[in-house]
């Protein structure tokens, strides 16, 4: 491998690590640890496994077919088939974007005391400015490198010396002794926060913009495995810390204010600022990805010019789309909706719509007309189908139960 390729690969992995944790994965992992100890580690593990395969597939598809995912879905399956899943994806993206903007506002609120409702519009404006003036690599790299502070969760988890046998047991699905509806609801929320469709739309669009080709396939695979694999360690770190700090004290995570103290008993004076910094940076990075991903989704469906590295004048409808989406998301946050509840709900909703997104995707990455000899193997196909089917079936059952207040 050439030195330049090695650098790009390292950067790609760092980008994936730093970009893995965001408001959804933090909230779901922390709640899971506080309520059920290590019993939901399996949900993080299997969701990440599905994500690794999906990210690798989307990068491979873009590199070989020279098309982004949303573009190819319409081309292959037609406008009528595409429109309903697209609308659902855009709606879910909007809710998740609102939650991410809420996460940034919350991080600032924790440190300053300023209310979220007052912060939503300025943060949305900052987000818009970064996307408007920034380039794809600048946005990705800066938020990802700053996001490496989430390694604090892994350090804290290691310092807490969790019992390795108990940890290992957590990687096997089990039935909880009580709170079954909540347990399964959290499992699907973890799946929804990990396997987020916006991530592979963003990844495949980036691959097309950066003009990947068949020579990029090795670094694509390594980025998917290394980046997502290491990133998943951050989520596991959050769960372990929450399990060791909150569970013995019977602290449920009903609000982010309760969550923010989680690192302090372990890391002392560094704990609180590292938590607030991690939350703010990771949510900002995720918000930028979401806004762009939604713009890509709509622009690619209708065949407009798109690309983060182009000037807004050259892609007026794409630029207008992500701008409108940011405004709408900010408005949602000014209504005073509880950010934690919005996060958990939108993650669970993501799990419900996954089959509508993944099935056409799987058909495409196995279509020789698009990928030639680079079709997916049976292992990848099987893992993805199982993870997605199981997640959506559980979501269809668990969400109504959770809404009805069952336990």
């Amino acid at each position, binding site marked *: 491998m050439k030195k330049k390729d090695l650098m790009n690969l390292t950067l790609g992995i760092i980008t994936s690590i730093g970009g893995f944790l965001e408001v959804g994965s933090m909230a779901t992992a922390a709640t899971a640890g506080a309520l059920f100890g290590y019993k939901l580690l399996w949900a993080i593990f299997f969701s990440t496994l599905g994500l690794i395969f999906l990210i690798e597939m989307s990068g491979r598809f873009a590199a070989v077919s020279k098309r982004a995912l949303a573009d190819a879905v319409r081309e292959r399956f037609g406008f009528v088939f595409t429109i309903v899943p697209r609308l659902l994806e855009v709606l879910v993206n909007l809710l998740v974007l609102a939650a991410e903007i809420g996460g940034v506002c919350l991080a600032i609120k924790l440190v300053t005391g300023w209310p979220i409702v007052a912060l939503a519009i300025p943060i949305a404006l900052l987000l818009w400015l970064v996307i408007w003036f920034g380039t794809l690599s600048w946005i990705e790299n800066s938020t990802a490198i700053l996001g490496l502070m989430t390694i604090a969760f892994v350090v804290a988890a290691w310092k807490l010396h969790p019992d390795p046998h108990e940890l290992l047991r957590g990687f096997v699905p089990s039935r909880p002794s009580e709170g079954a509806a909540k347990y399964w609801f959290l499992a699907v929320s973890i799946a929804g926060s990990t396997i987020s469709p916006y991530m592979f739309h963003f990844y495949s669009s980036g691959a097309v913009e950066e003009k990947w080709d068949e020579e990029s396939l090795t670094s694509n695979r390594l980025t998917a495995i290394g980046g997502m694999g290491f990133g998943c360690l951050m989520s596991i770190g959050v769960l372990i810390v929450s399990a060791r700090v909150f569970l013995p*004290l019977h602290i449920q995570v009903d609000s982010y204010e309760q969550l923010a*103290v989680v690192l302090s008993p372990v890391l002392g004076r560094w704990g609180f600022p590292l938590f607030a910094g991690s939350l703010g940076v990771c949510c900002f990075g995720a918000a930028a990805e979401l806004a762009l991903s939604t713009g890509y989704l709509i622009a690619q469906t209708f065949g407009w010019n798109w690309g983060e590295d182009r000037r807004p004048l050259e892609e007026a409808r794409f630029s207008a789309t992500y701008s409108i989406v940011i405004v709408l998301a900010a408005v949602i946050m000014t209504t005073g909706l509880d950010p934690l509840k919005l996060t958990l709900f939108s993650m669970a909703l993501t799990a419900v719509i996954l089959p509508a997104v993944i099935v056409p995707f799987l058909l495409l990455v196995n279509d020789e007309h698009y990928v030639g000899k680079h079709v997916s193997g049976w292992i990848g196909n099987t893992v993805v189908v199982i993870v997605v089917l199981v997640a959506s079936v559980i979501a269809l059952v668990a969400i109504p139960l959770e809404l009805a207040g069952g336990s």
Partner: protein
Amino acid sequence: MTFRHGVAAGLLLILSACHRDEEKDTRDKLRSWRSTLELVRLQREQHNVPAVYAKQVVDQAIDDVSKEFKKPHERATREEGERVLALAAKQR
């Protein structure tokens, strides 16, 4: 008559089960906030968290617990709720 009695008994059973679950949820929430307030107080004493954050936790605790008591609860639960509110007020 037998069918109606059966439906009424079933409804009573469901209602009483829901009522028991809500009580448990409220007691769990109170216990959670009590522990949170204690933990934050301890971290504040060790200068690990700033006063502005500690205040937010207290405000959130009071808000959350007060919302719980807009619904009817058993006496023991109410008394525990009052103790948590008193603890929060002391830390304000």
